[in-house]
């Protein structure tokens, strides 16, 4: 279709709309330009931008028990801020993120350092470290829910066999969040390892050679060469990981439903439950708006990192 629209004959009757001289063969007619751009852009506007507008707009409307909506201003937010469950959920989400993001990135960095230098069987280890990543978050939750089952799970059989004793894991208020962090870390680190490996291979080899000639120890090289050189890749994966973990949902839905006693009640699950269990859309959209603001802040940090890097390379 675009073939015909751009035929050279048509180019002469062309558009004042095109910014440059219409005779320029490198400038497409407006129709051609739209044919290239519009499908993707229209979908982005409809399915990315519009939902943000709906979230912010909808969060300002409240519902009464009959299901009638009316403009309520910041009522939804006021109610949220007066609700203990919201504060618990925010607390749980923050604790979850403060622990899981540094933990995952530290382990991923460890993986990357371990498999960086080629050696016998190293391809196997790289693949092994990455493999859990190919299991989706939902399937990871299904698998570990069975593995950690208090009666039937093999993990508890092992713990009992070696004398530690059975653990409740997801059934305990005190262990549930930690267990959630553990299974997400089991799955997630291999992914970030790949990014960090790419970063490690970009460090100029001369830096290490010079250090070796000076007799610097491995530890010394790690602290004074590797870490400073890896600052940007580490910051990048840290921010990207945080954006993902703020939206952690499937395992909470599948395994704990926010329990026991709110111990794993992450914000995303709160938003889901308000919308689809309590059918309180205004409140759910207020929660979505709060999540979007958090994601926006994370994205702004990410942009800054990108800009810093361009400045440094130019």
């Amino acid at each position, binding site marked *: 279709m675009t073939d015909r629209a751009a035929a050279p004959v048509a180019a002469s009757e062309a558009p004042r709309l095109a910014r440059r001289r219409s005779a320029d063969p490198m400038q497409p007619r407006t129709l051609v330009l739209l044919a290239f751009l519009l499908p993707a852009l229209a979908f982005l506007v409809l399915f990315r931008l519009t939902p943000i507008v709906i979230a912010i707009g909808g969060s300002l409307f409240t519902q009464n028990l009959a299901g009638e909506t009316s403009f309520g201003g910041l009522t939804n937010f006021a109610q949220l801020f007066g609700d203990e469950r919201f504060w618990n959920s925010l607390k749980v989400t923050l604790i979850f993120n403060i622990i899981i993001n540094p933990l995952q990135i530290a382990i991923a960095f460890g993986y990357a350092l371990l498999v960086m230098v080629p050696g016998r069987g190293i391809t196997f280890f790289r693949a092994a470290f990455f493999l859990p990543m190919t299991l989706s978050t939902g399937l990871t939750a299904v698998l570990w829910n069975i593995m950690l089952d208090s009666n039937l799970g093999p993990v508890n059989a092992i713990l009992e066999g070696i004398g530690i004793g059975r653990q409740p894991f997801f059934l305990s208020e005190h262990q549930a969040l930690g267990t959630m962090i553990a299974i997400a870390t089991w799955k997630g680190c291999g992914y970030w390892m790949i990014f960090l490996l790419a970063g490690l291979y970009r460090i100029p080899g001369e830096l290490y050679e010079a250090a070796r000639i000076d007799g610097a120890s491995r530890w010394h090289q790690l602290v004074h060469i590797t870490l400073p050189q890896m600052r940007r890749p580490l910051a990048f994966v840290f921010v990207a990981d945080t954006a993902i973990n703020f939206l952690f*949902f499937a395992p909470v839905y599948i395994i704990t439903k926010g329990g026991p006693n709110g111990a794993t009640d992450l914000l995303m699950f709160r938003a889901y439950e308000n919308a689809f269990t309590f059918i309180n859309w205004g409140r759910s959209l207020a929660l979505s708006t709060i999540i979007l603001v958090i994601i926006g802040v994370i994205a702004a940090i990410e942009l800054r990192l990108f800009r810093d890097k361009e400045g440094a390379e130019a």
Partner: protein
Amino acid sequence: MSVDRRSTVLAFGAARYVTMSLIALVLLLPLVWLVVSSLRPPADIFAQGSRLGWGMLIPDRLTLENYTSLIGTGFPRAVGNSLFVALTTMVVGVIINAAAGFAFAVFDFRFKNVIFAFVLAAAMMPFEAIVIPLYILVQSLGLIDTYAALILPDLANGFVIFMFRQFFAGLPRELYEAARVDGASWGHIWLKIALPISWPVVLTGGIMLFMHQFEAFFWPLVAAPSPEHTLVQVAIARNISLEGTEWGRLFSSTTLAGLVALVPFLLFQKFYIRNFVTSGLK
């Protein structure tokens, strides 16, 4: 090299391999247990699989019963749905994102920078963040519980557009100029010249779009509630919350769903990692 130094190097190497092996065990054993359990007769699964001993990993008897008995359930339909949704998203998504990436790389137009900044912003916003307002939107379009609800929101992808733009902008401009002078249309240049050269990005972007759909959970959970449109991840998760879960089938279906996601990755991991990771870090 002194004997002293050589022995530290050896000790370091040994410690490295011991550490890697331990990590590999923790990461792989659950997966091995999953696959082995899926091949046990249902009666053996917990009798053997959760009693401490070698029987945990080495089954007495092997059977495909858990796989063959999936045929009568909703699982084949869910796999079909997932494959249909993911493959459609992959093909249509690659086409429209590659076209937009090409326009950003080659054409000059008003507000280009502003529009491209919007694309980048979309690339940075995780899809899951907007699931609930998206539900309201898709509902008002009358599309809840249709394939369209599952496919349409996932077609345009800011990151894939970005990858294509980077690739097309890196090609020499003379390539397009020569074709233009010969009278080729832009559509022809894009389809016959640019797209074939960009096959590594086509593969990478295609796999990204496929995987995102195949592994999605939150959106298909709410957007397609009926059994006819249930996708595979949701189908499996639903099985564990039902009374009297068939554990054998849960293992076999989880194994199958994991394998489907693994295959494209194994086939194309070289391109995937090279393109995806480096465009993320550049």
